[in-house]
């Protein structure tokens, strides 16, 4: 159990497809992801590659977030897959691994997620957070999805 250092882009781990993992293998990573996410306070999700672990594990927690009134609370996603997606909406995203920018990214508004021991529907901001984290497991960053640096990418003041 530890707060881990967050890997900053550019870093090779952030653009690699992460490997599937079994529950025992995922457990220590989950602990560290939760500790690291809590430590940042403003963070609603983090994926294993961001703490240097190239495995398909992510945690999301949008509880109390003003944009996510119907959030599920703490979600532990091991080998998550989006099995259904619908709707489309542009929203602003930041990423612990890309502290210099935020960006407008188009995402599905309603998704159905399957992960180890889980199957659930999610919508709105929580669905956005889940899609962002699953992208990390596929080595994708929001920079791969923006249409225009001028219109959609914004410099961020360091916190």
């Amino acid at each position, binding site marked *: 159990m530890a707060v881990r250092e967050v890997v900053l*882009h*550019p870093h090779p781990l952030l653009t690699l497809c992460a490997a599937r993992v079994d529950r025992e293998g995922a457990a220590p990573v989950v602990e560290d992801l939760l500790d690291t996410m809590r430590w940042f306070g403003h963070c609603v999700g983090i994926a294993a590659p961001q703490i240097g672990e190239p495995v398909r594990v992510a945690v999301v927690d949008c509880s109390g977030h003003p944009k996510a009134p119907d959030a599920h609370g703490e979600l532990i996603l091991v080998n998550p897959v989006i099995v259904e997606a619908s709707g489309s909406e542009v929203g602003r995203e930041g990423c612990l691994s890309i502290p210099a920018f935020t960006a407008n990214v188009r995402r599905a508004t309603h998704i159905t997620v399957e992960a180890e021991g889980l199957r659930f529907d999610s919508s709105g901001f929580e669905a956005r957070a889940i899609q962002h984290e699953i992208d990390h497991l596929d080595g994708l*960053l929001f*920079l791969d999805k923006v249409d*225009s*640096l001028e219109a959609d990418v914004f*410099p961020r003041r360091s916190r």
Partner: protein
Amino acid sequence: MPTLAVSAVGLDRPGIIAGVAERLAAHGANITDSRVAILRGHFAITLIVEGGGRAELDADLATLGLEAVMVTEVPEAASHPRSEPTAVVSVHGADHPGIVAAVTRVLADADVNVCDLQTRLARQLYVMIIDVAVPPGLALEELDRRLRAVASEQGVTITLRQADADVL
């Protein structure tokens, strides 16, 4: 009436456009297109104008105290863009000289036209987004394959996707 390309660069401050435009107006040059950008604190303006004398305009703009001014007579060209963007290329990774050159060389060799190109540098992270027009004979998969090859040479990530065709 001659068509002139005017470009000017100066340390960013209020009044650069006003200064350039006043001199253009005084010479009877009509601005038919323009683009302005602030690049790392330097204000850059490029204009196409109709009318005015090249040499007189050049001499007059030189008195503005800018970093660089260039006035060139150019042939008249189509007022519409050569091609509409059909795909978007995103490039990001560790900054080093040569990324733009390597990526755009692949595009040029494939006869892919660059419609717009924007870049950002934040510490070591270099980001570039290019709007491109892919010729009808070139499959996106093939272009993607070539871009992946140059991405691995340059140690950067390149994503190619179809431009959003949403029209409302």
